[in-house]
């Protein structure tokens, strides 16, 4: 097979992501599809943040669902019970999550090993229990309703229709646009961090931590920074998720949800920002494709984790890129040989 020369070796991910996000609503007018896509975008943005921690700082958080849930419940409680408006509620929840992450990370990230994983695991379990038991605040296992997102008196509800600059749009489409925008911003920020001295310092920690330290990189400081950033990602997306779905349950904070997020990172490719988006999309598609799948969900996630680790430890996108480059090289080589003979 000869691959034409016009296919570049490296496709730039950002324009491709924007193109896919823009084209998607044109392919379907179906509100159900838009709903799935909106949720996917919000979760994918969370996973992009988690990937900064897992793929770059080399640390695993087993409690990211808890940060997501604190964002969601924080926004819900502050807007519904205390009458805050949505933006300050979102920022307040994110500040709380940042403070918690900082408190946990500061002592733990100075140590080598999996201390952060264990601590976040414990923290996640505690948050799930608190949300379940403190019914007066969170509605307990029954969950709680969340007011629609509003900013400057403009209320964004999935069930309303809006007229923007003379064009009729549904609330569902508008929410999709918001979620897509959030995903693009999340990716933009992640790529900025990766492509900066901070990202270089974190990559160096993977390569040789002592090399980074002897040239003056305070590695513990950067690991802590990226942990707090990834927790804020989860919190902010949790807040939007709560306003979008309009109803949240303690399930958001469960260990299973944390594992789901980690599985997305591993499947898509640790350290690959666009890879983990694909990971999120695939794992969220699964329940849609398989009916009566609910009770086997954890089983399947476990299986996917295992098979990914065994057959493509680098994850889906990096492995595919590698295969593609190899095929490309081989075809160019054979083309050159043909030219010579």
């Amino acid at each position, binding site marked *: 097979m000869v691959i034409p020369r016009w296919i570049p070796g490296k496709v730039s991910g950002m324009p491709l992501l924007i193109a896919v996000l823009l084209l998607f609503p044109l392919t379907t007018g179906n509100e159900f599809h838009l709903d799935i896509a909106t949720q996917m975008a919000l979760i994918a943005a969370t996973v992009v943040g988690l990937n900064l921690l897992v793929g770059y700082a080399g640390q695993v958080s087993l409690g990211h669902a808890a940060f997501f849930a604190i964002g969601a419940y924080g926004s819900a409680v502050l807007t519904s019970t205390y009458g805050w408006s949505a933006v300050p509620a979102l920022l307040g929840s994110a500040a709380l999550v940042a403070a918690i992450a900082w408190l946990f990370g500061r002592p733990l990230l100075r140590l080598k090993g999996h201390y952060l994983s264990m601590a976040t695991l414990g923290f996640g379990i505690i948050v799930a229990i608190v949300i379940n038991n403190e019914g007066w605040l969170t509605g307990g296992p029954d969950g709680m309703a969340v007011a629609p997102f509003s900013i400057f008196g403009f209320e964004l509800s999935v069930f309303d229709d809006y007229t923007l600059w003379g064009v009729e749009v549904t609330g569902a489409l508008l929410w999709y646009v918001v979620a897509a925008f959030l995903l693009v911003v999340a990716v933009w*920020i992640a790529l*900025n*961090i990766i*492509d*900066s*001295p*901070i*990202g*270089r*310092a974190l*990559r*160096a920690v*993977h*390569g*040789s931590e*002592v*090399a*980074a*330290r*002897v*040239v*003056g*990189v*305070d*590695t513990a400081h950067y690991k802590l*920074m990226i942990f707090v950033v990834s927790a804020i990602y989860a919190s902010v997306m949790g807040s939007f998720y709560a306003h979008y779905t309009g109803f949240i349950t303690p399930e958001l904070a469960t260990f299973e949800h944390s594992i789901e997020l980690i599985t997305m990172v591993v499947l898509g490719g640790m350290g690959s920002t666009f890879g983990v988006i694909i990971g999120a999309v695939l794992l969220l598609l699964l329940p849609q494709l398989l009916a009566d799948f609910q009770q086997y969900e954890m089983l399947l996630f476990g299986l996917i984790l295992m098979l990914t680790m065994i057959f493509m430890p680098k994850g889906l996108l990096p492995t595919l890129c590698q295969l593609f480059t190899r095929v490309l090289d081989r075809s160019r080589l054979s083309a050159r040989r043909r030219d010579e003979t």
Partner: protein
Amino acid sequence: MRLEVKGLSKAFGGVHAVDELDFTVEPGQIYAVIGPNGAGKTTLFNLISGIYRPDCGEIRLNDERVTNLPPEQLAARGMLRTFQHMQVCMNMSALENVMLGRHLHTVRGFWSALLRLPQLRRSEQACREQAAELLEFVGCHDYLESAASALPYGALKRLEIARALAAKPGILLLDEPAAGLNTTETAALERLIASIAADGITVVLVEHDMKLVMSISEQVLVLDYGRRLAVGTPTEVRQNPDVIAAYLGG
């Protein structure tokens, strides 16, 4: 930069790797530390550069007490080092490794990184150019964009030196820079060390290659069992009966 070591000791279990050691490196000197295998040379480097903590003793840099400071803070004060067993980030390109060395001299604030502000972009561009110049300076111009893992051994050793130079050292510790190099490469290394010293950087090196040590160093410290056996100019050290005994097993 002036380096002063007083009463420095470090024991591992019952073994005194470095034992009550005193010496002073004057600014701008090329100072060599030699000694038989196991004499404590690498331990001494790890103590000075903050990788190990000394049991007792004092280390001063330009009259500031720096004992027990972590490596990243020593780097900020101008003390840089290379390793006998190379510490190169194999997941990055050669150029990126050197850019990493420039870390302390780049714009690296959280918000400027997050939003990729123009000042960060300019600083990164300058960092890239300076890193490329340094790679050329150490003789690695063929490998600018290569993955570090693709570099031959000799080039990796020079890459480590370039990375240390990128951090603008006042004092540079080289741990066995000539180990594993052939004669031509060693000759190139000698010229490189001389030109580094000519820029006013104090150089301390641990080295087994006696020809190299004797031809470039101004002062030589001889260690044996973690203690100071002799110190002086290469000629003095070569004629010292204790040194001859230690090396020839007399």
